[in-house]
């Protein structure tokens, strides 16, 4: 008993204690703030319902983008910072298709066909950019030390941003409005905006498809094998290069689809639009446990919800003015909080099993 206690004492460093104190303080603040807000009774149940829906819609987009980060981290152990530009390239290119459909009234007459085409264009563009990115910028550096691909990724991110700025201009474009997805569906006092429903359902379907692709198919299995051990999978006859390319393409497809959903929700595209969602999705991936696919989904949705509900729930009760300005601060505080108590993220790191 005493021995056990001593061993425990050796394992706990002063840093740990400080961290726990910080974590405990944040947690106490959150609980205090939430109780005060709920006690004040400023928001009705339908307000909370709205907050949750807004958060779910935003969060499912983060989740889709986070898939790209987490998949690439899984197979290459690198953070693909250019992924935010992969996300931007799809909807920005598809904008021109969407605008053409809108001008010719095709969008209003055949909204579903148009949307399908817009999604396909965006997903193919994003996947193509992701594929080229891996082929040109990352593959030649695969044997280099880990820091080098990271710097390359940042360089590639700037390169892509300014290529698209050169191609499509520095202003922003307004995405056309799809009429049948305007308005809302009401259930008593609760209601949901139609395009929020579209975003949530589409993102859920895509996430489910991605997950089962990774878990159930032969290619998915090969990707998981590569992420566990490249050399061993090479010896087992898996074409490692091809699997890495495939991973990038899958991440690109998810990002392209996320981009269109984002454009449908916010109706604006410009060359810098990927930056913030990219950072947020990366945060989501870390939050859920980078390299872990369900973790990325969970992290994304969690982050979206926190951003939407957090300022009202945690800060309103504390009497802080203009809490929505602190939205990002709350999101990143959550990240700190999660990492203090679970250093590998909510669901833990790595694609398949933990490596020594």
């Amino acid at each position, binding site marked *: 008993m005493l021995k056990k206690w001593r061993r425990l004492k050796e394992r706990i460093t002063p840093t740990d204690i400080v961290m726990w104190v910080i974590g405990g303080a944040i947690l106490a603040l959150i609980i205090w703030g939430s109780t005060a807000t709920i006690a004040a009774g*400023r*928001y009705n149940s*339908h*307000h909370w319902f*709205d*907050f949750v829906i*807004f*958060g779910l819609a*935003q969060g499912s987009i983060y989740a889709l983008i986070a898939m790209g980060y987490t998949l690439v981290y899984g197979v290459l152990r690198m953070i693909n910072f250019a992924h935010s530009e992969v996300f931007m390239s799809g909807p920005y290119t598809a904008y021109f298709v969407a605008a053409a459909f809108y001008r010719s009234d095709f969008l209003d007459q055949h909204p579903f066909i148009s949307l399908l085409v817009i999604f396909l264009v965006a997903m193919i563009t994003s996947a193509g950019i992701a594929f080229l990115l891996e082929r040109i910028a990352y593959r030649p550096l695969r044997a280099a030390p880990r820091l080098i691909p990271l710097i390359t990724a940042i360089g590639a991110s700037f390169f892509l941003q300014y290529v698209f700025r050169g191609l499509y201009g*520095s*202003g*922003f*474009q*307004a995405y056309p*409005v799809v009429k049948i997805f305007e308005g*809302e569906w009401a259930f008593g006092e609760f*209601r949901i*905006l139609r395009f929020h429903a579209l975003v949530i359902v589409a993102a859920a379907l895509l996430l489910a498809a991605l997950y089962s692709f990774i878990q159930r198919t032969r290619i998915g299995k090969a990707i998981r094998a590569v992420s566990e051990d490249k050399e061993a999978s090479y010896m087992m006859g898996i074409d490692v290069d091809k699997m890495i390319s495939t991973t990038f393409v899958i991440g690109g497809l998810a990002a392209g689809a996320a981009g269109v959903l*984002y454009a449908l*929700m*916010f*109706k*604006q595209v*410009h060359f*810098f639009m990927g*930056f*913030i969602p990219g950072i947020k999705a990366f945060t989501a991936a870390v939050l859920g446990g980078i390299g872990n696919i369900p973790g990325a989904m969970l992290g994304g949705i969690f982050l979206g919800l926190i*951003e*939407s*509900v957090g*300022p*009202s729930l945690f800060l*309103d009760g504390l009497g802080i*003015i*203009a*809490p*929505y*300005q602190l*939205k*990002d601060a709350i999101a990143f505080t959550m990240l700190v909080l999660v990492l203090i108590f679970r250093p590998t993220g909510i669901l833990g790191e790595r694609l398949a099993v933990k490596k020594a």
Partner: protein
Amino acid sequence: MKRFLMMLFVLVMVVSFSVISVTAQTKDKIGEIKIKKGEPIHIACWFVIAGPDASLGTDTKRGVEIAAEDKGGKLLGHPIKLSFQDTGCNAEGGQAAATKLAADPTIVAAIGSNCSSEAKPGAPILWKAGIATVSPSNTAPYLTDPKRGPEYDGYLRTCHNDKVQGAVAAEFAIKQLKVKKAATIHDGSVYAEQLAAVFAETFKKLGGTITAQEAVAPTDTDMRPVLTKIATGKPEFIYYPIFIAAGGHITRQVKEVKGLEKVALMGADGIFSPDFYKAAGETAIGMYHSSPDFSAFAGGYKSFLEKHQKKYGEKPLAPFHAHAYDAAMMVFAAIEKVAKKGSDGSLTIGRQALRDALYATKNMKGLTGNISCDKYGDCADPKIGVYKTTADNVKKLVMPDKPIWKP
């Protein structure tokens, strides 16, 4: 030996530099610029010429260009050289642009910046290098406040101070729209925060209630949560004097939030631009803007518009082209006043003298009215009107040209 030579060399350099600076100081307190015969007079503009708020910078850039053209491209026999530096409409961009300009000794004077957040860190950097700057569109009260500090001594502006604009917006809401409850949203920028505060203060003074003073980040896209929060206070009017990207998102998302379907919307001069109509689409119809009153501008404005149309093939993109024209004319006049001609055809311009000449501008007949600078650099003749956006404006992407209400 080598080391000794090196030391000697360094010593000589130091001595010669200090001699130069001493001799310079005897002529002008903070230095002067010598422009040789045939060399251009370099005036640097630091504007937002890229990104979502590029319309603001492009608009003022054109104003300056037309002013230079009206001067025949020449000042005292020297060609005018204009250079443009992007500022990004944020503090970091303003600081970077100002640092770059400060390092260029050929710059005689600067025009800019566009957004108040850029001027706050940027103007002191320029003034440290002895460059006076005249802004055509920084409206935040802080920049010409008596408490602003000596580092802003080289700063002037030809546009209105937001103490005026915020009050006009509040008066319009109370007197014309007869609303009692209003909410404000700012984006943390110096401009928006102060303008929203002035509005709220005047609105309360006139007997209204402010239900919420919210804030967003300029890069935010999902405004529905914050709007839902605002809706709990049941305002009849929302004033959000912010910039185009976030302003577009708010305008689009307001009507989707329960309880805000009938709320009146009002923005300020920062989003009074066709680019804002692009961002907000049809949801901008019926919304109000406070902005400089074009119809009260001087007679020369009409021919300015004709030149603008001829040169750029379109109508102005934002409200500050005329202020930029006036700022440029003010700088030109001050240079003409203080430049000393040398016998070899060169020009010598004292930096302190130029700054003092700018501050001494009185009763200059500008496009925007009578330009007279006070001792804190407020030079405008502020005339603010309230505009209402029609379906036609949004469809054709042109701003309304006549205000619907004036104080």
